[in-house]
């Protein structure tokens, strides 16, 4: 980084353990050493607080003000891997993902909407079962088998699909899909 100028007003509003006093001690001073020694990620994350620089312009791989997916399309493989292998941007609002409104709309879902929707769908499926043909013990066993299978599926998906960074093809479409599925969740764990 090229000696950035940080605006810390946002940070002062938070109830950070240890107090904001420590940061205030470094008002108008160089805080880079303290940021580096606090935690490996702190120094990098502080980049999102930069409002200017004492030397060159601030260079960001991804601009939080523009839709993410278009920018993912344009970065190279090495930049992509660095992006998804660590959390970024602690201090920005939920960024826009897609240029098109209908895509953006579908990327936002309340957790309880998902719950209700899937419960309604499964109720419909259960209503299609001819219950006179099925013993309740067998039904319960098959239901448990289904739940258990998902637990294994969850592991398989996370290990060999979501975290396939080490053998991901150097291809725009592959990176785009990987980012949409899971990369974004590792870049911004609290948002997507």
């Amino acid at each position: 980084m090229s000696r950035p100028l940080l605006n810390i007003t946002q940070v002062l509003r938070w109830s950070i353990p240890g107090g904001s006093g420590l940061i205030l001690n470094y008002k108008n001073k160089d805080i880079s050493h303290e940021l580096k020694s606090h935690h490996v990620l702190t120094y990098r994350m502080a980049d999102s607080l930069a409002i200017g620089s004492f030397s060159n312009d601030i260079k960001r791989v991804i601009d939080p003000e523009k839709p993410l997916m278009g920018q993912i399309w344009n970065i190279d493989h090495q930049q992509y891997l660095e992006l998804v292998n660590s959390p970024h941007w602690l201090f920005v609002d939920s960024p826009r993902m897609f240029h098109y409104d209908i895509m953006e709309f579908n990327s936002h879902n309340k957790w309880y909407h998902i719950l209700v929707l899937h419960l309604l769908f499964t109720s419909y499926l259960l209503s299609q079962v001819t219950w006179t043909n099925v013993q309740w013990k067998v039904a319960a066993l098959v239901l448990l088998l289904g739940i258990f299978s998902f637990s294994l599926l969850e592991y398989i998906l996370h290990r060999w699909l979501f975290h396939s960074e080490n053998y991901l093809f150097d291809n725009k479409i592959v990176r785009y899909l990987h980012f949409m599925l899971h990369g974004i969740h590792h870049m911004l764990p609290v948002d997507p």
Partner: protein
Amino acid sequence: MEYTTCYQSIRKTLSYLSDRLVFPPVLAAIFVFVGYHTIYGLVFPTNRDLRLIYWVGLIYGYICYDMIHYALHHVGKSQGYFGRLQRYHNQHHYSGENAGYGVSSKLWDIIFRTELSKNDPHREKQ
């Protein structure tokens, strides 16, 4: 201890924003449709009733996973089993993406030997 508390406070500040953590239903519908027709012949090919019940089980499993995962990220620092799961998942995010793949349980991590190391500040005991 300090790191975890710090992350928790940040997470709390940002949590009101998030409505992106769960899987979009439009994509889920496509996945279920494709999945159902792909493994059609593998699970109870001759018994439609059991096949339907199996799929209901799968979707229940998915609901559990997504709700647990959402809670792991958005419920504050917790105690007991849920708290342990929370710290385990935080560790997966903040220090070891290539292990700790189990979100709703550690079972498969133990079986496939991809459990995260216990000696890590992100999983410190309370």
